[in-house]
């Protein structure tokens, strides 16, 4: 419990991530699009190391009934965290699981303070 310094802010540049063991839990911190995010490294599916997965995009599709056309687009490049075990997808900024909307990665408050990255459990 409490506050943990996980890195110097300069060690975590835009697009970087790190995984730290804090009070017996693996917590990952991402710097993405100028923001910091801290998530438990534990996939809601079967406990895989989700935060070590690729940041990728995903397909989204819409159907236009009038035109009878499906349009398929590859979106959200770099925002979708994909668990390396079986591919469950999570939206990085919100932690929301894309296939099970009621599931989120457990998250922790994280901030930059006096040149450090600080996670509060």
């Amino acid at each position: 419990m409490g506050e943990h310094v996980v890195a110097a802010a300069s060690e975590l540049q835009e697009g970087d991530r790190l995984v730290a063991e804090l009070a017996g839990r693996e917590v990952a911190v991402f710097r993405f699009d100028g923001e910091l995010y801290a998530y438990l490294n534990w996939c809601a599916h079967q406990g895989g190391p989700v935060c070590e997965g690729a940041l990728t995009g995903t397909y989204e599709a819409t159907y236009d009934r009038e035109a009878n056309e499906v349009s398929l687009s590859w979106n959200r490049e770099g925002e979708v965290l994909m668990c390396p075990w079986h591919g469950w997808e999570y939206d990085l900024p919100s932690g929301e699981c894309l296939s099970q909307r009621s599931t989120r990665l457990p998250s922790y408050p994280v901030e930059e303070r006096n040149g450090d990255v600080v996670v509060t459990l």
Partner: protein
Amino acid sequence: MSTQTNRSPLTENTVVDVDVHLRIPLDDLAEYCDEPYRSTIKHPTYTAVNRSGWDRYMGGNIQKESLPDADTLYEKVCDGFDIDYPLINAFPVLASVPEDDRAVHMMRAYNDYLLDNYLDEYDEFRGLLSVATQDPEAAAEEIERMSSEEKIEGVYVLNSGAHLPLGHPDFDVMYRAAADHDLHIAFHASAGAPFARDFPIQDNAINRFMTTHVLAHPWAHMLTMTSLLVNGTPEKFPDLNFTFLEAGLSWVPYMLFRLNKEYGMRRREAPLLEKSPEEYIREQFYFASQPMGEPNDPQHLKDIIDIVGTDSLLLATDYPHWDFDHPDALDRHLRQFYPEETREGVLADNAVEAFDLSL
């Protein structure tokens, strides 16, 4: 079939029967066709093709019933079974008609025949229009054409004979027409040539791995299990166990009970068996847990495990394949729902038994 007209608990209820079939003689159907189809369909060759000529009626020992006219249907189904509203389909095997234009023409003829000879005859009768899946545009037009008919309530689609899997975007015109007219879809398979000849080739048009991956293992296992039972393999080799890997459990309950039912009706086609298929399966067949089904309500997984039986269940991860299950995916259910002894059985003892392991 002897249909009894004495009191049944159903008389008090409103009852809808959603699958009542006709068997329309092609000579009668021909009257609803224009030339050249009228002549063509009087000389059919497609009904007796490869693998359609099964001994369905056990050498004539079980009755081959039909409902040749509206009065007979009313008498047998409505009076005999206390059905208030039969939802009738013409049961055409249009997918086996090799010429697409003929199939489309016959589709219209079947639907007109159904209306004229059945649906118009009794207020209670309702119907499903049939479509030829060879031509989804023509199917959509037919849905439009029939949509003004009050007695038509939905669309009958033979799915084992379609040439493409029925979610293929080619069929969207058909579904859109159905949706526009509030005509809902009913799928029906076939045990004849469509299943043997056309159904397997749908596999060639699967366009995402997910589809093939969901289906490949259980389909193969279903066929294997059925073949083993019908041929009496577990009876021939009573000391031999059979384990089914990589399809999980959820496919098994259907097989247990359907094989029992079919065995009851057609025992002479599986004459080596000395007991019910379910007994063989429970005694000699084992099922590996992976891929664990993921029901929205975890209780349902317990229900499935209970039906298949914890004695028949083996732990499997399938590691290192990408779709492996962590052992805890199964074990957390075992811990939650079962006593320790049962859990130990699934984790090890059943495997020892299934393979005679020396540990």
